[in-house]
């Protein structure tokens, strides 16, 4: 493109200096500058400024990163501070916002796919599959009257040791008696991650909630909510473990139960095994 009369805007001159001009305009601008020495001098001055800034500060990025920026250390050091661990309230607020803005799980996936590429999309849908596994297990076992669990809740210590061994990480089985839920018991289930632990709780009127957890591949995730077929689940991942809390489709109640579970499972020092 060599339209010699094409007017060149000031914005284009900036983009030219910053290497952000579309290729098909670069030549036109260069040609135009050759005939407009005043503008060419301006462009040269801007280039010199940019060069000066890069010369002055560019080398900072080549310095070795000081130990104070070690991320594990930063996390540890701020561990004593209040509200360091992500709070349930913030997670729940984010989940509500995400659901509001994006219309629930499907929207979230769509956004994940467009914003972060296919790898992230695969991770998101993998996590979605985890939630489906949890809901299927929930639906399958909550209707069981005689054999809802393999190990009864009275054998909590034995169950903790057994499932910790089978899943490869320390299990923390929450005590939900403070919100009126009694541990029915638990069982080992197959899952995409190999094995999952499944715990069931029961309320005074017979309503049942379950926790489904297994090792997760990715980093921690935001809190998500999924509902359908009269059941719903809150699910999230933290420290390479994914959790899904399923129950009757009553978001407020389920959130309360999930929060109680989160507080016991996630908070360091809150080991109520």
């Amino acid at each position, binding site marked *: 493109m060599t339209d010699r009369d094409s007017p060149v805007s*000031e*914005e284009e001159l*900036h*983009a030219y200096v*910053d290497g*952000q001009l579309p290729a098909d305009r670069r030549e036109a601008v260069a040609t135009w500058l050759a005939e407009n020495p005043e503008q060419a001098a*301006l462009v040269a*001055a*801007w280039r010199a*400024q*940019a060069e*000066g*800034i*890069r*010369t*002055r*500060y*560019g080398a*900072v*990025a*080549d*310095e070795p*990163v*000081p130990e*104070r*920026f070690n*991320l594990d250390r*930063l*996390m540890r050091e*701020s561990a004593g501070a209040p*509200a*360091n661990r*992500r709070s349930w309230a*913030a*997670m729940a607020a*984010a989940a509500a916002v*995400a659901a509001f803005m994006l219309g629930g799980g499907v929207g*979230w996936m769509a*956004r*994940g796919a467009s*914003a*972060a590429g296919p*790898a*992230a999309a695969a*991770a998101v849908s993998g996590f979605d599959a985890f939630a489906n596994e949890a809901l299927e297990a929930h639906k399958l076992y909550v209707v069981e009257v005689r054999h809802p669990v393999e190990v009864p809740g009275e054998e909590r210590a034995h169950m903790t040791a057994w499932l910790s061994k089978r899943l490869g990480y320390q299990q923390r089985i929450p005590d939900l008696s403070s919100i009126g839920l009694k541990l029915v018991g638990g069982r080992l289930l197959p899952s995409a991650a190999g094995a999952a632990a499944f715990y069931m709780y029961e309320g005074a009127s017979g309503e049942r909630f379950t926790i489904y957890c297994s090792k997760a591949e*990715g*980093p*921690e*995730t*935001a*809190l998500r909510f999924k509902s359908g077929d009269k059941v719903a689940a809150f699910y999230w991942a933290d420290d390479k473990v994914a959790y899904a809390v399923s129950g009757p489709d009553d978001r407020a109640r389920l959130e309360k139960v999930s929060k109680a579970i989160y507080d016991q499972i996630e908070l360091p020092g809150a080991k109520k095994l």
Partner: protein
Amino acid sequence: MATFRQSVEATIPALRRYARALTRDADIADDLVQDTLVRALRSEHLFHGGEVRSWLYTILTNLNRNRLRSLARRPMLSPIEDNDAPDLAGPEAGGRDIERALATLVEDQRNALLLVVLEGLSYREVAEVQGVPIGTVMSRLARARVQIKTYLDGERPALRRVK
């Protein structure tokens, strides 16, 4: 797939560079970077995909703006510029000139200019970081360049305090 943590870690050198140019003070800059990292790690659950790098630049830019606001509220301001004497000749002279020229910019213009020329962000990314339309980024960039040129050309206008 790089994890969130890995992406954050990989961006630290660039964040230090940006902060150094923003504040022109190595200690303040590194404090700012540390605050940015802590903030990012704590609010990872609020990060819903996209570019970790842009998100970190956004946090750092906002933290620095808050820092300048709280400085401005204090009665004692350490002078940004207290010496209008010509720079001594030498290899450092050019660097000091550009440093002083940057100090005369208003904060939004300095952010825009540094994100573009030092950090290599696209105009669109800068618009996201600053939370303004691209046109506003362009005009900040243009004003920054005029101001620096005026300063370096020796006209040295009255210094502007950051609001």
